């Protein structure tokens, strides 16, 4: 087990390193002079030279890369061109908001997704099953930012129930979290239904039914339990999607999370913030996948054994 964990951790570190290299290469072959971008066109030659030297742009690219990497090890992602704030700090501050949004989206997805999935599987073939399953296909296909706007129109403007933007109150989080979660409500509902139906015909479930265990207990105790592992897999695998989806949702609801910070950095061409944001988000994804992988190996020994062979 320890060997497996060490192997996965080393792999994860290599992946993060590769992501850093690729991001750095993509963003630093950028045409145009970053110093001119910071100072504006009217700066005189001496100032430009000085700032260029200060920021290390006069050094060759590979030296710049190793400098960046060295600072990265100390969680220093540089400073923003414009606000002069340390990138890591502003990213971490924004991330607390984003992770709140992501977790609320997951909470919605779990509650509604499992409920809909259970209803659909119990009422298999009935109208409600068909209705839920066809709605869920639409839910999977709809872009989250569009769902967000539709929710704004329905709940914010027509019904006037919830605020449509800004604010950090709980009610201001409901629509964004629901919009971000829609896709996962739909896919969790489908997975729940499929894995429950798989188990309902099994011998041990029939035995339980024959013994007179109530239908409710069979559904929850046996069938739903079987659906949990695929649901957990989905949640782990989709975290990256939720974090990038959050970019779009934050834009719709003007929430100043990590997504909005990233998007703003693109529009203002604030390279250190964008570079930092990509590495930050990607690293979080890699860590989550690593944790999911390791927890699997705990649950299912076949995974780590298969890997060692």
């Amino acid at each position, binding site marked *: 087990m320890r060997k497996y964990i060490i192997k996965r951790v080393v*792999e994860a570190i*290599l*992946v993060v390193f*590769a*992501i850093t290299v*690729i*991001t750095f290469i*993509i*963003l630093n*072959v*950028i*045409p145009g002079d970053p110093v001119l971008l910071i100072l504006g066109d009217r700066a005189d030659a001496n100032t430009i030279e000085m700032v260029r030297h200060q920021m290390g742009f006069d050094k060759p690219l590979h030296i710049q890369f190793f400098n960046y990497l060295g600072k990265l090890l100390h969680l220093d992602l540089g400073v923003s061109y414009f606000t002069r704030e340390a990138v890591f700090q502003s990213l971490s501050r924004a991330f607390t908001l984003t992770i709140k949004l992501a977790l609320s989206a997951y909470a919605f997805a779990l509650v509604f997704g499992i409920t809909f999935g259970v209803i659909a599987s119990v009422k298999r073939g009935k109208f409600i099953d068909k209705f839920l399953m066809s709605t869920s*296909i*639409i839910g*999977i*296909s*709809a*872009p989250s*930012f*569009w*769902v967000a*706007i*539709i929710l*704004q*129109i329905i709940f914010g*403007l027509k019904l006037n129930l919830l605020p449509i933007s800004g604010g950090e109150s709980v009610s201001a989080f409901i629509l964004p979290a629901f919009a971000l979660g829609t896709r996962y409500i739909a896919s969790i509902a489908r997975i729940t239904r499929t894995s429950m139906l798989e188990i309902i015909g099994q011998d041990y479930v029939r035995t339980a039914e024959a013994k007179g265990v109530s239908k409710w207990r069979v559904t929850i105790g046996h069938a739903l339990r079987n659906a949990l592992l695929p649901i957990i897999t989905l949640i782990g695998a989709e975290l*990256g*999607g939720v*974090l*990038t989806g959050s*970019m*779009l949702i934050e*834009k*719709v609801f003007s929430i100043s999370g990590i997504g909005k910070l*990233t*998007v703003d950095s*693109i*529009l203002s*061409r604030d*390279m250190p913030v*964008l*570079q930092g944001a*990509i590495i930050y*988000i*990607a690293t979080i*994804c*890699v860590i989550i*996948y690593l944790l999911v992988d390791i927890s699997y190996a705990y649950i299912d020994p076949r995974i780590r054994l298969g890997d060692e062979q």
Partner: protein
Amino acid sequence: MDILSLGKSKKYDFENIEVKENNYKGYYSKSFRIFRKNKEAMLCLFIIVAISVVAIFAPFFAPYDPNAQSLADMLQKPSAKHLFGTDEYGRDILSRIIYGARISLSVGVISQGIASVIGFFMGVMAGYFGGWVDRIISFLIQVFSSFPYILFAIALIFVLGPGILNLFIALGLLSWANIARMIRGQVMQLKKKEYIEACIINGGSGLRVIMKHLLPNCISTMIVLITLGIPSAIINEAALSFLGLGVQAPASSWGSMISLSQPYIRSNPSYSIIPGIAIIIVVLSFNIVGDGLRDALDPKMKS
């Protein structure tokens, strides 16, 4: 093999190649018959074909010039004159949706075309040569699938600048990992087959094995992966355009229309709703056709 193809193969009994071709035909015609029975998938295929025709002949179908501004007709609700209403410059939304279909479909198809070439090449190299080639490519696959590739797409577009050509490149260059992983697995299995071994032992070059034996065997997998990759490319295009990183004004993309419509959700909600429905219809159709193709071509892929 059914009676019909048996009759045909008799005709070419002495030429091995012809018989083999005939076998492929049998496989694909069988698959097509399975697919044709799938009513939902056929309906969705029809929708895709219809939308493609409308997109290709956009000038013929669009009632107005998509970029013609008319300040007198600003932000109108749907009416007989403007079926889907007008936007903040008085441009006809239906016409912009029709022209937007060109963007969505071309981004979907071209980026997946690029991705499938890269993915096939990488997958075959890894699966066929094994060893350190496999290690490097597998590592790259791991890197590209361990976080959402749209992040790299954003970085690429930040550098290259927005625009449709750069969307093709960014989405195409970055979405190959999934295809490569599937092809790699398939090639590793195929490599153990006797006829491939026989070809190698008889001195068949690597290129010959790849083009003559591996490619035809991978085509059905590729068709399914490309069909299922198109909708996610379309969603990503819409997302990038929504963020202002896609096609640039005055060209219309469904994602950028949704973005532009945001200030007007109070006065003209249909402006926001319609482009989203267009996205859903296309994405849904490709997903269902892709699933149908998978069931028809390769039931084993259904994992």
